[in-house]
């Protein structure tokens, strides 16, 4: 290697090309994430994650490399880039940020935000100063009143400024990145609606005619979880400790969601899940500080099962393809239990690691079984790859395909030829706007903001944010214990699926469950009109009995 480098003449290596290399990497991530997708990841964050990746990719750990990475980190710190706290303290510098300080009651300690609002400087200053002034008198008394309460989590520390902070964790890269991007769009719309008093937020009784939450602006930042639990927890921790997040939310895989829920419980910060279909999320891994709105596996199975039996008859033989983690096993087991109860047999449950790109080995086993229904539990890009490859194996010629939990952009990746006649469920589907007026408003506003229709992870994002905001307003405080108790009262919030509420015993949302059937290509009106809504099953009818959930909610404090 030494001599090879000399091949092009010259010698020696000074510090600055190394910085250039590091900066190329970091600028890459920062520029792309922040310019293109408006995610305020920063140069330091890029360096940090690049460094982490390099460290992870060098195995067994090569001491000089790791040492060198430490050196780069140190160098970057020296030139003024703080690497220790990647996504928090480095904020994109723009005129929007420049106005943050005057609006903050406690000045410089206010967490800065990414607004995404098309505001100009003066307008922003006015609102900021107005808010600050409005809070002036009331604020003093409020602080005094709160001094009597026991601090818990980030309360009251995170609520002392003129704004509160919410951490958004989205799977922007990795196997579930399409779902994560939709999730992000949903959060941004929800929080802007909340701050501006517009959209579906304004239709919620407690929030009508108000801007922000309890008179405070809700600020937020997005972090990329990479569809992995470790980065998810790492970013969430940073949001909690450095931004004093009063609530955090997001995640698309149950593995991430369960890990973040644990963190929320430990830190006593409320966590509203993103997408999570595993029974464990509100079962054996349930947490007092975690609330889940998506259908759990049991609800999917209980809603879908009767339709399958009605469509395909009794005495069918099903084979499963299942991703090897909490969600996969949970949904496969629920589907097996439900369909077996209704008279079907299970031929086999073929388990594949998560993630996988080549499914040929698993599909060979499935193709050569005597099953006549193929139930594909795979999700996201894995769902697309496995289904595509199954079609190539001719599996759909001899078996009926069922996808119990259809990920947001799966139909786009597979095309209507494969999707037609396929039964499944989604948390929400835009065609539900024909049944629910708030869904109609939601779709309209979302299209206005993002130029495309929302998918169901955006629905989760919006709904979860709205329910939390409703609970905070009704509780009249950000104190998480009061907010949780308000949510546990079971008083419904009227949203895109009508009135919904959480069950107090496990924090699973009781909500309508849409059953979908893939349309024929000829029947589609537009390119995202993939499904007919064949049924919307009332949530109360398909909830798993609380005593079967093995959920024991931990203490409030």
């Amino acid at each position, binding site marked *: 290697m030494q*001599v*090879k*480098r*000399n*091949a*092009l003449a*010259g010698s020696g*290596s000074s510090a600055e*090309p*190394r910085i*250039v*290399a*590091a900066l*190329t*990497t970091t600028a*890459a*991530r920062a520029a*792309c994430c922040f310019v*293109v*997708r408006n995610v305020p990841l920063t140069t330091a964050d*890029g360096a940090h994650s*690049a460094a982490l990746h*390099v460290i992870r*990719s060098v195995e067994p750990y090569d001491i*000089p*490399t790791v040492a*060198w*990475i430490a050196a780069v980190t140190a160098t970057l710190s020296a030139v003024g880039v703080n690497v220790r706290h990647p996504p928090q303290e480095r904020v994109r510098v723009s005129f929007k940020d420049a106005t943050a300080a005057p609006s903050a009651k406690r000045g410089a300690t206010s967490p800065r935000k990414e607004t995404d609002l098309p505001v100009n400087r003066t307008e922003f200053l006015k609102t900021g100063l107005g808010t600050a002034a409005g809070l002036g008198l009331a604020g003093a008394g409020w602080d005094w009143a709160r001094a009597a309460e026991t601090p818990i989590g980030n309360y009251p520390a995170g609520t002392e400024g003129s704004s509160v902070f919410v951490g958004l964790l989205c799977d922007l*890269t990795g*196997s579930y*990145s*399409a779902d994560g*991007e939709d999730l992000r769009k949903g959060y941004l719309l929800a929080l802007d609606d909340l701050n501006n008093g517009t959209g579906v937020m304004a239709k919620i009784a407690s929030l009508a005619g108000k801007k922000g939450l309890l008179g405070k602006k809700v600020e937020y930042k997005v972090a990329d979880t990479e569809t992995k639990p470790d980065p998810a927890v790492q970013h969430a921790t940073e949001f909690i400790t450095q931004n004093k997040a009063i609530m955090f939310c997001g995640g698309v895989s149950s593995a991430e969601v369960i890990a973040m829920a644990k963190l929320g419980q430990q830190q006593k910060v409320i966590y509203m899940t993103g997408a999570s279909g595993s029974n464990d999320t509100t079962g054996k891994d349930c947490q007092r500080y975690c609330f889940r709105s998506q259908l759990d596996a049991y609800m999917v199975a209980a809603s879908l099962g009767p339709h399958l039996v009605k469509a395909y008859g009794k005495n069918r033989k099903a084979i499963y393809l299942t991703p*090897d983690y909490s969600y996969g096993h949970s949904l496969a087991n629920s589907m097996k239990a439900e369909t077996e109860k209704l008279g079907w047999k299970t031929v086999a449950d*073929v*388990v*594949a*690691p998560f993630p996988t*790109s*080549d499914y*040929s*080995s*698993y599909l*060979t*086993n499935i*193709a*050569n079984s005597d099953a006549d229904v193929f139930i594909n539990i795979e999700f996201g*890009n*894995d769902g*697309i790859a496995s289904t*595509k*490859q199954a079609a*190539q*194996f*001719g599996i759909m010629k001899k078996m009926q395909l069922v996808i119990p939990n259809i990920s947001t*952009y799966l139909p*786009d*990746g*597979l*095309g209507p030829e494969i999707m037609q006649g396929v039964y499944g469920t989604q948390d929400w589907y835009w065609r539900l706007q024909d049944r629910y007026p708030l869904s109609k408003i939601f779709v309209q506003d979302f299209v206005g903001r993002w130029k495309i229709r929302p998918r169901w992870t955006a629905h989760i994002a919006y709904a979860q944010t709205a329910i939390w905001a409703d609970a905070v307003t009704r509780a009249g405080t950000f104190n998480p214990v009061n907010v949780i108790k308000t949510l546990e009262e079971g008083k419904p919030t009227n949203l895109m699926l009508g009135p919904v509420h959480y069950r107090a015993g496990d924090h699973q949302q009781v909500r309508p469950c849409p059953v979908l059937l893939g349309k024929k290509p000829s029947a589609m009106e537009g390119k995202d009109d993939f499904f007919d809504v064949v049924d919307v099953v009332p949530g109360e009818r398909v909830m798993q009995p609380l005593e079967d959930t093995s959920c024991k909610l931990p203490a409030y404090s």
Partner: protein
Amino acid sequence: MHLIEAQALNGLALGAVLSLVALGLTIVFGLLGFVNFAHGALFMVGAYAGWVVYSQTENFFLAMVAALVVTFIVGLVIERVLIRMYYRRPPEDQILVTYGLAIILVEIVRAIFTGVTRQMPTPAWAAGTVQLAGIFYPQYRLVLIVIAAVTLAILYVVLFRTRIGLIVRAGIDDALIVNILGVNVNRTFLLVFALGAAIAGFSGIVDAPLLAVNPDMGTDLLVQSFVVVVIGGVGSFFGAILGGLIAGEIISLTTAFAADYSSVALYAAMALVLIVRPQGLLGVEGRA
């Protein structure tokens, strides 16, 4: 026992693609002396270039050509404006810069095409199944084996029967002496980097009908093809093929009988090779 034969065939198809991807990686690695972490991203760029053309023309051959041409040009540009500055730098810098490049490519594609998975269907003429000894097997996977074999054969001719091939092979072993003997290695490096990129891009489009076409599709593949290179031996043409086939069969056969251990088995095989023959099965001892 048809199932075992079917799994062996799966391994062959998987191994064919892995060989191809690993070959691009190994010649760049061999000649330039460092791992191109952007190889997986170039695989993805090829898939997208092909997908764009396919969605306009429905012609898979044009898609393959587009993938080749686009990634070749991308390779030329990258080598010229970026990689060239790093040949004399420590390996850590090289890793960082190609890693950064991978992020740039992935994010550019995400910015243009969004993160939504694109629908890349199986070409109609290869969409069916064929019956082989009593089992149904996807025609496209057989086509894939043929495409990979033909491509490898062409590359063999280029590498072993042409002047530029000789320079590349010599450069992989010792770039300095090639330089001393009057050959402009800068030009060779440029060409080889672009060739490696084109091979990655080509693999991307031929593999696309099997995969979910999205910006992250190349990420995991990079790791597997790196394992293939280690097993086969850095810089070795036949090593890449042998390594690819071994890896493909290991993954498929362990998946069939003990799915939980498929990736473990692959890494165990790599560890075994590293213990018994650190330079890789067909690698040459004592090189970088």
